[in-house]
C-alpha cells in the first residue's frame, strides 16, 4: 500500500497555498504510507539559459553556500540556492545536461533528485507528518505538485527508494502498487543505457518512461506502453512542467479518485485526501477508468 496525491491549481490564490494544501493531503494519506514520503513541486521556473536542480546530501550539515559559490565560479552566473531539509535546490547558469554532468563528476557524494526548469523534488525516509514539517512544505507556492507516502513491500526503506522518481527533465513519477517483471525489465533498460540507483520496482517504471520518452514517444504513448510492458499493479501519477497525467493498471487493482473544481484538479489514492481541499464538497468527483490515460495541462510536454 502507498498513497498518491496530486494537485493542479487554476487560481493564483490556490497557487499561493499549494504547499499547504498538498501537506494536508499527505497527512490524510500517511496511514497508507508511514515509512517514507516525497513531493515534486513545479514552481519558479529558472530563466532561459539556466536550469534548476534539487540535490540531497547525506551529510549532517552540508555546506550548500560553498557549493553555490563553486557553481557561480564554474558557470559564471549567480547560483541562488534554497536549503530545505536534507536537500537544497539551486538555479545554475547552464543547460541542465551540462549541470548534471558537472555535478555527477565533481560531487558524487550528492544525489541529484531532479533537474529541469521548474521541478523541485524533496523526499526522505521517515513518517510523512515529520517530512511535511521538516521540509516546511507549507511555505511552497507553485503551479502544481505531486506527493507520495510509501509503505515498502519489495525493497528497502531509504531516501533513495522513496518517491517521486525523476524520469527526465521536469518529469517525475509516483507509484502505488507493485510490479512483478521489474527485474527483467531493469536488465533490458540497463542495456539501453538507463541508469538505476536502487532495486525498487517503481524506479523501473520511471526508467521505462525515461527510455520511451528518449526514443521519441509522447508522454501519452509512453504511458500506454506501460499497459503492454509492465506486469503488475499500479496507479501512476506523472508530473510534467505543465501538469500531470494519471494511469491505472487494466484491472484497477489500486485505488484512485479524481476531483475538479474551478480552482483545482486533484488526484488521490483515497477521497479523504481530497475532502480536505477547499470546495471539495462541490467538486466534480470520479474514479478514473482502468487502462486510460488522464492528463491536465500537458500541452507543452516535450
Amino acid at each position: 500500500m502507498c498513497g498518491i496525491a496530486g494537485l493542479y491549481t487554476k487560481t493564483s490564490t490556490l497557487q499561493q497555498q499549494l504547499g499547504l494544501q498538498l501537506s494536508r493531503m499527505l497527512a490524510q494519506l500517511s496511514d497508507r504510507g508511514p515509512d517514507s514520503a516525497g513531493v515534486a513541486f513545479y514552481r519558479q521556473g529558472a530563466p532561459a539559459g539556466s536550469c534548476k536542480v534539487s540535490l540531497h546530501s547525506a551529510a549532517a550539515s552540508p555546506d550548500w553556500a560553498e557549493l553555490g559559490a563553486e557553481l557561480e565560479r564554474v558557470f559564471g552566473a549567480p547560483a541562488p540556492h534554497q536549503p530545505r531539509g536534507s536537500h537544497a535546490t539551486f538555479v545554475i547558469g547552464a543547460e541542465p545536461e551540462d549541470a548534471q554532468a558537472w555535478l555527477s563528476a565533481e560531487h558524487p557524494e550528492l544525489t541529484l533528485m531532479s533537474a529541469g526548469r521548474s521541478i523541485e523534488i524533496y523526499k526522505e525516509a521517515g513518517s510523512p507528518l515529520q517530512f511535511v514539517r521538516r521540509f516546511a512544505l507549507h511555505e511552497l507556492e507553485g503551479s502544481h505538485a505531486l506527493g507520495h507516502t510509501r509503505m515498502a513491500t519489495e525493497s528497502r526503506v531509504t531516501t533513495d527508494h522513496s518517491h517521486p522518481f525523476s524520469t527526465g527533465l521536469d518529469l517525475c513519477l509516483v507509484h502505488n502498487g507493485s510490479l512483478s517483471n521489474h527485474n527483467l525489465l531493469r536488465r533490458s533498460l540497463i542495456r539501453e543505457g538507463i541508469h538505476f540507483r536502487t532495486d525498487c520496482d517503481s524506479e523501473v517504471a520511471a526508467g521505462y518512461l525515461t527510455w520511451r520518452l528518449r526514443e521519441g514517444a509522447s508522454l501519452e504513448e509512453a504511458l500506454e506502453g506501460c499497459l503492454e510492458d509492465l506486469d503488475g499493479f499500479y496507479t501512476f501519477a506523472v508530473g510534467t512542467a505543465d501538469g500531470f497525467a494519471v494511469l491505472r493498471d487494466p484491472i484497477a487493482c489500486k485505488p484512485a479518485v479524481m476531483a475538479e473544481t474551478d480552482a483545482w484538479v486533484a488526484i488521490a489514492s483515497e477521497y479523504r485526501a481530497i475532502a480536505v481541499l477547499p470546495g471539495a464538497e462541490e467538486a466534480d468527483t470520479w474514479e478514473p477508468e482502468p487502462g486510460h490515460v488522464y492528463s491536465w495541462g500537458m500541452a507543452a510536454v516535450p
Partner: protein
Amino acid sequence: MALTEEAVVTFDLGSGTVRDLNQLLHGGHPDSPPARFLVTNPGGKHAVAVGLNAPYEIEIEGHVGYYCAGMNQLANLRVRGNAGVGVAENMMSGKVLVEGSASQSAGATAHGGLLVIHGDASARCGISLKGADIVVHGSVGHMTAFMAQTGRIVVLGDAGDSLGDSLYEARIYVRGAVKGLGADCVEKEMRDEHLAELRELLGRASVEGAEPDDFRRYGSARQLYNFHVDNLGSYG
C-alpha cells in the same frame, strides 16, 4: 424517506471520531426501538457505520470512505454522496442507499438486504455475492458479479468487461450494453418469473420509468463449477 427533525441524533464526524460514532450505533440491538441518526462531515472517512445490528435509520451527509455500512444488519442507511471501496460489504440485512456513485467491490460478499446505488458502481460490484440484492441506476465496471453465488444484481446502465466471470447461481439483469461476458457467464431467457422478480426489485429500489422487458438476463452456464442439477435443492 427523509428524517424528520424530531428525535434525530446528530453526530458530527468533523469533531467526533469514527470509533465514537460506531460505538454509539453499536448500542442498538435487534429489539431496540427504531431510532434516527444524522451523520455530518464524513469527509471520506473509512468504516463509517459498520457492524450495525439494530433497526436504525441513518443518513450520512457527504462522501464516505471504505467499507461504509459493512456487515450491516437491520439498519437502513442513506449516503448523500459517494461511497468508497466496499460499501455494504458483507451486509446481512437492511438497506443501504448511495445517492452518488460507489467505488470498487460495492456489496462484496453481501448475504442479504438491499444495496441501491443512484450513480455508477465501479469494478467488482457484487463480487462473491451471497444472497443480497443490488440495484445500480447507472453503470457498473469490469468483473461485476465475479464468482457471485446467489442474490440478484440489477444494472440500469451498462456493464463493463467480464460480467459474471466464474458465476455461480446469482442472477444478473442489465438494461444497457454489456462490454463482455466473463468465463461461464451467458445470456439467458427472460421468463415470466424473471420479469416478476425484476419488477419487484425495481419497485423495492424505487426505480421509476424502467420496464422489465427492456432488460436482459445473465447467469451461469454451469460448465465451470462442479454443479449437478440433481443436487439443485441443496444449493439454496
